[in-house]
């Protein structure tokens, strides 16, 4: 049973920048592209270390993705980065037709996903990127929960062949895992076991779910917490097992309740083990300006909201 191991706060994008520099030394095929946001996405770190393998494509996300595709076709392993809203939305057709359709070996690593973007407001807060990437055949979709997992996810993505989307946030988040953290694409991780309900969480919501579980445990409610870092391919087996064991399911994601982890779990339940479900996420609205903490609270994405969701779903499950 893992708990929050550290109160250290690191932004996942910082871990990404570091991971790129590390991998760059080992993998000569690694090239990195950005769209005029390298200081924000932290690809600037790679640019400093390996300037000849870094390409700033300017404010042109379509070309960013298309150029990455060409580099991949010529044997490179490109990581293309920009804000999540632009990476997935502004270049969707490019990702679809030029990368996913031929299954090219391009890694799209987007930062500033979700409402924790904060003050920039709704136009910059991607709440739909998981949905967009998940619907693409053959696309792997990863949402790391902390800096350690980010590092491992980036390394694993670069090591596998085929298109991968990695979703990172802007803000510093608690470091949950140790260096020994086992990360395997497609394998969800039970961070905490419990028979009274299960919370499937991804990204920043994993820490919130752990906190909620600790509070609930004090009240005698034992909630399993599963870190679904890979939203696609989904760890169907584990989800079914936990749903069966608990009979009460909550999902938690910093994303729309349509098309993301909540939908993915709903699909699995419907097709394998129907069970009461409460999806926590952004409920069909855009974000807005405010501090990340204010927005997480206003949009119902904090531990107390997870606690309420657990209570609700247990009620429905007749507990």
């Amino acid at each position: 049973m893992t708990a929050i191991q550290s109160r250290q706060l690191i932004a996942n994008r910082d871990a990404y920048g570091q991971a790129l520099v590390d991998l760059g030394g080992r993998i000569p095929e690694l090239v990195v592209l950005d769209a005029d946001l390298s200081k924000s996405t932290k690809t600037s770190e790679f640019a400093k270390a390996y300037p000849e393998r870094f390409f700033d494509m300017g404010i042109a996300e379509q070309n960013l993705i298309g150029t990455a595709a060409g580099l991949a076709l010529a044997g490179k392993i490109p990581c293309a980065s920009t804000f999540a809203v632009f990476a997935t939305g502004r270049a969707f057709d490019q990702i679809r037709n030029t990368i996913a359709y031929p299954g090219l070996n391009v890694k799209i690593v987007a930062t500033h996903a979700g409402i924790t973007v904060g003050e920039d407001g709704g136009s910059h807060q991607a709440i739909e990127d998981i949905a967009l990437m998940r619907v693409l055949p053959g696309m792997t979709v990863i949402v790391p929960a902390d800096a350690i997992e980010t590092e491992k996810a980036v390394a694993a993505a670069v090591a596998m062949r085929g298109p991968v989307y990695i979703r990172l946030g802007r803000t510093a988040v608690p470091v949950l895992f140790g260096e020994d953290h086992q990360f395997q694409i497609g394998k969800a991780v039970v961070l905490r076991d419990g028979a009274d309900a299960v919370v499937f969480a991804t990204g920043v919501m994993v820490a919130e779910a752990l906190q909620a579980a600790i509070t609930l445990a004090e009240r005698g409610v034992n909630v399993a917490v599963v870190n679904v870092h890979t939203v696609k391919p989904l760890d169907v087996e584990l989800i079914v097992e936990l749903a069966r064991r608990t009979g009460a399911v909550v999902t938690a994601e910093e994303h729309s309740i349509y098309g993301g982890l909540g939908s993915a779990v709903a699909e699995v339940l419907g097709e394998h083990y129907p069970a009461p479900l409460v999806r926590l996420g952004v409920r069909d609205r855009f974000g807005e300006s405010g501090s990340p903490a204010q927005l997480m609270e206003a949009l119902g994405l904090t531990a107390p909201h997870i606690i309420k969701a657990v209570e609700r779903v247990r009620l429905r499950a007749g507990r």
Partner: protein
Amino acid sequence: MAAGGCNHLQLSDSWRASTKSVRNAGMLLSEVLIQGGNILPEAQDELIKGLRQRARQIRCDLVRMLAAAGSGHSGGSLSAVEVVTALYWQVLRIRPEDPSWPDRDRFVLSKGHAAPVLYAALAERGYFPVEELLTLRKLGSRLQGHPDVRKLPGVEASTGSLGQGLSVGLGMALAGRLDRRPYRVYVLLGDGECEEGQVWEAAMAAAHYRTGNLTVIIDNNGLQIDGPVTSVLSPLPLPEKWRAFGWAVTEVDGHDLPALLQAFDWSVGITGQPTAIVAHTVKGKGVSFMENQVDWHGKAPSADQATCALTELQQGGENR
């Protein structure tokens, strides 16, 4: 009213009067000025002096609101101050008391991250209370990090995702022509923003549809986020590109108010073709430690920095 001060300066009554009479006569004051019309020379001087004061006021507003917000885009707001001032106090035919007047001219801030300069102009022009500027980027504010057309009167389009505003302006221009309305549409683009392909789609379409009622101003401050535009991904030369895309083009010092007014007058005179004004500007203009500093693109001044900036602006004098 301290001369050169940073309070909410009111323009002198004489300027107001002269502006009004010329507007009533159905002409742009700037037009008269430039073409040597029969306006008193004092009125000319007064006009430019008034606009300069206005620009300084807006810079002060920017520093204050950005400092209060603790985040936001300083550099590209400051570089656009004169362009926005010229538009809101001289060029645009608008009615702040009736923001949805169908015949109003439209201004689309395509480089939506410069929202503060738009908000400051709208507040100073009377669309909403000036005090509200201090709510910038706060939860619940009408002053979102990027302009939200649903929230704030005077905002003509939601922008923030770069490269989209010209298309919106084109749609407005086409609608105006369809409805035989006399309004004109102005769109402000960043130079880095011109790297977006959609800008060129819209440019091509506007030329094809001969939207003479559409004017683009490019805030050519030479910087984007990752560095100078010429080193990140050069969109230069801009005039050649816009010309090749079928636009009439002029270049101007984007901080020279008389020159800007002349350029806007020129744009009105061109018919059957959209017009582009390449405004050469300085990013961070008016705050010495921000000028031409790429790091000041997306940063707000601290309280101390704001004090420095305001002092500097207040000492700048009439002609800065």
